[in-house]
């Protein structure tokens, strides 16, 4: 490992991750990644919306695999390691959520904005692809489906 890579590895930090039923606090994630070094903080909130595929959604339930908490930590570490000098915080909520509830929060800070935007986008895509969490949609007409498993 070159000196530069060692520096990056020391600076790239996962400061907060978790999968649980508690209400997510977006501001707490922003505070967690803040540092005197950071000139940019990018936050993403994944919010429960009231429609999907043209149908009206009434509520959502998320289910997590028992390993999901560990996997989210690994995802955050992987993204942080390939993103340079960033600080990363990410949480996914599970259980019963209502329209407008926050299901996913990702916050990334870095010295400059481009790195934080890129890392935050990378983090969200990686969570969607690799986190063992499932979503059950209840539609306004009372029917329901597990998303992606039709």
């Amino acid at each position, binding site marked *: 490992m070159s000196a530069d890579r060692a520096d990056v590895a020391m600076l790239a930090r996962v400061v907060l991750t978790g999968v649980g039923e508690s209400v997510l606090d977006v501001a707490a994630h922003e505070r967690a990644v803040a540092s005197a070094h950071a000139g940019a903080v990018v936050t993403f909130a*994944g919010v429960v919306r009231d429609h999907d595929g043209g149908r009206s959604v009434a509520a959502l339930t998320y289910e997590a695999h028992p390993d999901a908490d560990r996997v989210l930590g690994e995802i955050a570490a992987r993204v942080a390691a390939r993103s340079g000098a960033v600080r990363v915080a990410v949480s*996914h909520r599970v259980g019963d959520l209502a329209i407008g509830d926050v299901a996913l929060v990702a916050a990334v800070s870095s010295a400059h904005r481009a790195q934080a935007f890129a890392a935050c986008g990378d983090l969200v895509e990686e969570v*969607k*692809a690799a986190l*063992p969490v*499932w979503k059950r949609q209840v539609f306004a007409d009372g029917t329901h489906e*597990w998303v*992606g*498993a039709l």
Partner: protein
Amino acid sequence: MPAITLRYYAAARAAANGLDEEVIETESPAAALRVSARRHGEPMRRVQVVCLYLQDGRALRPEAAAAAVAGPVTIDVLPPFAGG
């Protein structure tokens, strides 16, 4: 025959009429999944096609699923992830 425990999540559990898991005594994970598909019918067949599988927590490649197992194993039946 070894005991093969199938653990169902999300759409797979729904296809198994709400069962979290079932134990099937047979020679391989693939054989256990065939029993499950016969038992639970078309919904289970449809969901199995799109699932990923873990054997004792490690990714189970499709070509390895037909290999006989020596002792009891647990197979996680994982529908496509839909977080975020």
